């Protein structure tokens, strides 16, 4: 059984941008012994430390334009790494992990379709919440069946 890191990221104060942390919250219950859960406003370079300690990493984030309810795709490390302290993409982050720690875990993006990002409020839209639960059910299945 691989040990898995789930990182849900986004700003819960920006409506559906909070989908990533909301997903992390759903899994932060100790029910999955091989799962470590993290959440933050955005990915940061020091996440590379935790990523390097896992076999698999799943980045859960809101997506403004994907097909509903969610998508799940495997990603590869970026070759040319770019970031600021405000943002680093999952591909850049696993690329950084490879460069810094010579570790290359299997990496996936779980992108959940969101709709409303344009004001300050701590609530998911109804549609986004429905997408969240579908994504969570999918992830539960993957973890239980050990398919990630």
């Amino acid at each position, binding site marked *: 059984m691989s040990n898995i890191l789930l990182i849900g990221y986004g700003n819960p104060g*920006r409506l559906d941008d909070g989908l990533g942390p909301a997903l992390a919250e759903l899994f932060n219950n100790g029910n999955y012994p091989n799962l470590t859960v993290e959440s933050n406003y955005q990915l940061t370079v020091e996440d590379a430390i935790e990523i390097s300690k896992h076999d698999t990493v799943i980045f859960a984030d809101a997506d403004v334009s994907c097909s509903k309810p969610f998508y799940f795709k495997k990603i590869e490390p970026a070759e040319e790494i770019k970031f600021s302290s405000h943002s680093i993409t999952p591909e850049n982050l696993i690329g950084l992990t490879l460069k810094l720690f010579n570790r290359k875990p299997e990496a996936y993006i779980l992108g959940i379709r969101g709709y409303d990002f344009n004001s300050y409020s701590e609530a998911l839209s109804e549609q986004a919440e429905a997408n969240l639960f579908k994504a969570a059910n999918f992830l539960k299945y993957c973890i239980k069946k050990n398919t990630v």
Partner: protein
Amino acid sequence: MKKIVIEPVTRVEGHGKVTIQLDDNNKVTQSRLHIVEFRGFERFILGRPYWEVPVLVQRLCGICPVSHHLAAAKAMDVIVGADKLTPTAEKMRRLMHYGQMLQSHALHFFHLCSPDLLFGFDADPAIRNVIGVIEKHPDLAVQGVMLRKYGQELIKATAGKKIHGTGAIPGGINKNLSIEERDNFLKDIEQILEWSRGALKIAKDYTIDNLDKIASFGSFDSNHLGIVRKDGAMDFYDGGVRAIDKDGNKIFDHLDNQKYHHYIAEEVKSWSYMKFPFIREIGHENGWYRVGPLARVNVCDYIDTPEAEAARKEFMAVTDNKPNNITMAYHWARMIEMLHSVEVIKSLLNDDDLQGNDLVVSGERRNEGVGIIEAPRGTLFHHYQVNDNDQITMANLIVSTTSNNEPMNQAVKKVAEERISGKPEITEPLMNEVEVAIRAYDPCLSCATHALGKMPLKFELLDNDGHIIQTESRN
């Protein structure tokens, strides 16, 4: 007339663009750093109960939420009449804040500016990047993320959680530091100190070894502003505001923080959404000032931790103990501050007050409060008015990058005039030099405009009629 557009500036936080206008002889006639996004956060919190504000303001910025959290909490201390916090509350907040300073300075130095310092402004862009640093200086690159991790863990332990931390509340703090948490941090503190010393040495050696080249690079005389403790010591968490002129003469010192708007005003310019603060008694023309590491090292009388104080003396000796106005010296000053932060963290971790249980005080309720703190990028002002129903009726924030707005524009102007003027073809190293000058300030433009966004990087050279005659792009 020709116009160069740099959009956005890379390896800085947030999003801005630079325009440089040239006449028919390719001489620079105008240069500006534009901020192109909207403000709006201050309106969003109107009507919200005051006790929610320290949590809400963290949404301003995902990278320095702690600074906004603590500045708002300090303003709310005034609202609830908490004029003196308990030792546990104040020290827990300090630990949170100095942890924030450590992680922010570490990232900027090790990963955002080190490519310029280690390889040179004009090095091949193929190696002048973080991968180049990892490949040539792998230990440094790892130290950068480890230092940052340490600071982030301190924030988590003191604020409660990474997102929407609730540690600081009006009148105090809602938790102390357990013995287990303390010991966990203490076991690594000597290593963190060692790495900080190493970073300081790199910044100092770079500045001294390249002084001839960088002394005038993007540099100019200016006023400096920051908070200092009553006795003049550097203090990031609390103190009175001090402003000095280019020669070190005090313009004001320890005026009433609650009346900051009596001595600082903000000018609006039509071409930028970001305001231009200035010292009222001098006026907007010459009253602008720098904030952040360079200003803080310049305005303080001393640093109360031994290694940082020794480093400050070396730093000030370069300019014969007069204020240092070298823009690139921001990097050296930033590393002095990082070492100071680690020294303070070590001292706090050894203080039993962190395990105290007396966490909150209150006093006579007020309807207005100002909180001022030194954020990683400089002085941060939070000002609120509250009605009798406990709702926010007015909010005004002056964030660090806003105070550095005019200085960054001055830096762009200086580099443009000295390095670009007369050169019709804009090469990548020339574009990078403009950005190097801006990056010295570690600006956080999205925070300063209270918005998020992303733009591709584009340089455009326009002719008299606005037609593009040369385009350069990084992305």
